[in-house]
């Protein structure tokens, strides 16, 4: 059993290395498959993966609906940006900034989680939506000299390169995956599946929910920190409700609780939005229509969709086996 897990870790390590080298080669000026424009998309993609994996832990795996993820991202973004602006963008400081951003978001996540996670379902969704907005408004109005008010922070050193987002997303994936395949992860799923049964089997619901929330918001903060050094300018309005919905969309599209699905959905959505950029006017309509179609395909109840799912059941099955063990 131990040998098997070592082999698995090795395979994982090798795939990460291969992916890294492959993307690097595609980015080489001589190869130029991923040209500088596409490179910015690739960076955004990895930030999205980090964001969505954190939300998947909270919403997909533990079943706690959160519509405030972008708020926690902003906490990470602002604290990391401030830190780098006050110090320097040396590698050490960037790593420190990422850690500070993640911890700040997790700390606020902890404070907010204690009262809100008592709520269930729709009520929790509304509460987190409200809290996400409160974070945004507080950031906008508190200490304009420090945080820049509605205009936000500009001139943030562009410290986020491919390595930062790549390893940020890989670490996030490994942590969430290892957590998922541990006693804590099973407890999270148990809470999602049946709170009364989980509690009767000795699971402390509050602890598990807060644990998921803190870890999830930690990675939202990390993603925020990476985002600051990627755009250079951050404003409160970048972290509004719509951003939270964008992240939730990735999680739902990839399948609640399915971490490989999250990765694939984040890639697919970014590719889709690039592919549609030439159709400026209809772009959002096509995008939205495709989302509706995908959702219908995934969960539509009418005979047509049930049939379609059956026809495509082979690849779908394979995908879910991919995510299991």
């Amino acid at each position, binding site marked *: 059993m131990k040998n098997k897990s070592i082999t698995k870790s090795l395979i994982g390590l090798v795939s990460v290395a291969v992916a890294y080298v492959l993307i690097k080669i595609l980015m080489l000026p001589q190869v130029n498959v991923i040209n500088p424009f596409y490179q910015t998309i690739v960076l955004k993609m990895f930030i999205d993966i980090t964001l969505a994996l954190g939300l998947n832990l909270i919403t997909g795996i533990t079943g706690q609906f959160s519509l405030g993820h972008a708020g926690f991202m902003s906490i990470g973004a602002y604290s990391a940006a401030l830190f780098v602006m006050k110090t320097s963008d040396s590698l050490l400081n960037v790593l420190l900034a990422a850690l500070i951003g993640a911890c700040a978001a997790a700390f606020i996540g902890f404070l907010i989680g204690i009262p809100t996670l008592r709520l269930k379902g729709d009520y929790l969704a509304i509460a987190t939506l409200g809290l996400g907005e409160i974070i945004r408004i507080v950031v906008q109005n508190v200490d304009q000299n420090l945080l820049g008010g509605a205009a936000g922070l500009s001139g943030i050193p562009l410290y986020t390169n491919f390595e930062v987002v790549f390893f940020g997303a890989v670490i996030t994936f490994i942590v969430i995956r*290892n*957590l998922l395949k541990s006693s804590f992860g099973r*407890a999270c*799923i148990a809470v999602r*599946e049946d709170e*009364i049964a989980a509690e*009767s089997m000795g699971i402390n619901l509050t602890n598990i929910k807060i644990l998921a929330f803190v870890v999830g918001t930690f990675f939202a903060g990390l993603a925020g920190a990476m985002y600051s050094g990627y755009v250079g300018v951050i404003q409160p309005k970048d972290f509004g409700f719509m951003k939270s919905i964008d992240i939730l969309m990735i999680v739902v599209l990839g399948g609640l609780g399915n971490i490989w699905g999250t990765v694939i959905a984040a890639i697919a959505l970014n590719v889709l939005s690039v592919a549609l950029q030439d159709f400026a006017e209809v772009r959002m309509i096509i995008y939205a229509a495709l989302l509706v179609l995908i959702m219908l395909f995934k969960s539509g109840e009418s005979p047509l969709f049930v049939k379609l799912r059956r026809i495509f059941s082979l690849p779908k099955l394979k995908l879910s086996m991919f995510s299991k063990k």
Partner: protein
Amino acid sequence: MSVLKVRGLNKNFGGLKAVSDVNITVNQGELLGLIGPNGAGKTTIFNLLTGVYVPTTGTVRLKDVDGNKININGMKPHITARHGISRTFQNIRLFKNLSVVDNLKIGMHKNIRHSIFEAILRLPRFIRDEKMFEQQAMYILSLVGLQDKHAEFAMNLPYGEQRKLEIARAIATGASVIFLDEPAAGMNPSETEDLSKLIVKLKDEFHLTVILIEHDMKFVMNLCERIYVLDFGSIIAEGLPAEIQSNKRVIEAYLGEQVE
């Protein structure tokens, strides 16, 4: 020697007195039956004793695994679970999207000795705990005859096996007192027969005290050592199966119901 002493237990839902002034004493290692017509308040009593509901009034005194006597009334279910109480549910409540063996491991989570950081970093204490959980879970599964299905999703098991899995999960918590809410419901006579044997076997193997609710009278009368009868929230009789079968009030309570 009693493991559980229930005194003056009451539960009101608004104006409804679901449980009124119930006294129950459960002896160590006993196989106790709780019977009564539909809506008598049996499940409510289980919910009160396991912490799902808070009693309106009354005390529940438990002698826990270490022999300490504590009041558990009003404690949350995850606390009563820590004190060695576990249960199954009338409407099966398995973790449907977890594998059979993982369902058992949920019951063991409260015993983990590693931290979340050790789990994320896959450190030795995590590996040791996981190995131990796996062995214990597979052993319990082998006793209930589900070891071959350990990797199956719980929702894919046939109904009878889901009931067995719930019992196995309750045992996996390491509980000493187990409440079974209608374990034979929906089973055919031969399955019920097997279940009786299984319950006795598990009770002996794990030195359990078992309290069970069941409507199948043949099952209850053959299996239980002592029986309490509940009607409209009150205990109307207590005694050996033979005594209960000939008790006038019990017959009345059931005849009144037989009209259905």
